[in-house]
């Protein structure tokens, strides 16, 4: 299964936009665990996931070809 990762702000310095082979990653919670394990700096950051452009508020199943955005909050003005 493949998914597309899109990241924003400071997170894009950590995780570049990429297609990810996701064996064993079936849900957004699995994906979070995988990302925080692979990119330990992410664990200390505030971020939210969006699956196919919809904000993830609870654990959701991921399907082949889904796109997942990783967004940090911005505060600058």
């Amino acid at each position, binding site marked *: 299964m493949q998914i597309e990762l899109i990241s924003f702000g*400071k997170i894009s310095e950590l995780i570049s936009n990429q297609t990810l082979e996701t064996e064993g990653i079936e849900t957004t919670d699995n994906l979070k665990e995988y990302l925080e394990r692979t990119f330990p700096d992410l664990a200390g*950051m505030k971020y939210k996931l969006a699956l196919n452009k919809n*904000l993830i508020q609870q654990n959701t199943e991921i399907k082949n070809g889904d796109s997942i955005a990783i*967004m940090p*909050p*911005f505060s600058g*003005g």
Partner: protein
Amino acid sequence: MNRERYQRQIILNGFGIEGQERLFTAKVLVIGAGGLGCPALQYLVAAGVGLIGLADDDLVEISNLQRQILYGSEDVGLLKVEVAAKHLRQLNPDVKFVLHPVSINAENALRIIKDYDVVFDGTDNFVSRYLINDACTLLKKPLVFAAVSDFEGQLAVFNVEDENGTKTNYRDLFPVPPKPGEIPNCVENGILGVVPGIIGTMAAGEIIKIIAKIGKPLTNKLLHYNLLNQQQYEITITPSNEYKQVLGEADFMNRHKKNITETYLEIHIEQMIEMQNNPATLIVDVRERHEFPKLDSNVYKQVPMAEFENFAASSIAQQNIILICQHGIRSVAAAEILHQKLGEAKNIYSLKGGISKWRQFFLTIRHER
């Protein structure tokens, strides 16, 4: 109202004289007259919004001028809201202005915001953003949210119902504020002036759409903009159950009123000067090493925020620790970290307004030594 001034927008399909009249009877509060606020103000005023409230307690600094386009070199040191209002009155004498030269806080937020129809948040820190969000949610005021970082921007419209009656706010995106210092603001982070220029202008567009009831505002959407690749990415926001709605004024005050006396004290420059020559006082500059003005490191110990945890855990001889930074925001974060580590063992202070507010003092002192 001089119709000729607005002719080009009155003839727009769907806008018309109704749209113009809606603008002219609207009251918009712009919080933060900085990189986002300046362009938003120019377009709102030019378009003929009837009354504009300007809230900001900052003074113009030279480092603001690359992006805060209402100010010129001669304005450095002056109050932003006054300089902005002077230029904006020239731009359009039809518009009335109310100046709020204050920092929006728990005590004044509800009182100030309640008189307006739409609020624009163009501030530069999370404390203000959560405060404004909660106040607008409590008062059911449409809130246009804009924020920037590096080459990117975010834009959203909160507290406005979509066709299904759903409305969301910033806490549906990020329920809990980041810890102080967790996310850099413009002072620590770079920003290219056109980015807040673009996002602030888009925000003015959203405000005009909400007031004139045209098009589809970014209700329940978060728009991401990236200047470097000219891409936009729009995300649908759904309500979160990870936070509790603000229930009323008392709840709002509890959440946002700082109980500062028990942990650390925010002091003014006079109080710092009194303590400065006392050998029991240590002054710590928590800015990054690249920031200006550079201070004498023999007088002001430099410990950037990334190194602050280690510093707080080290043994500090002095009894009084005064924390300073550019604007007095990071120094508050540092004071909280220090208090967590040291408790009541030391007297902890944060210089209110920071080095930028007392720039003259810091520069003079540096020259004397």
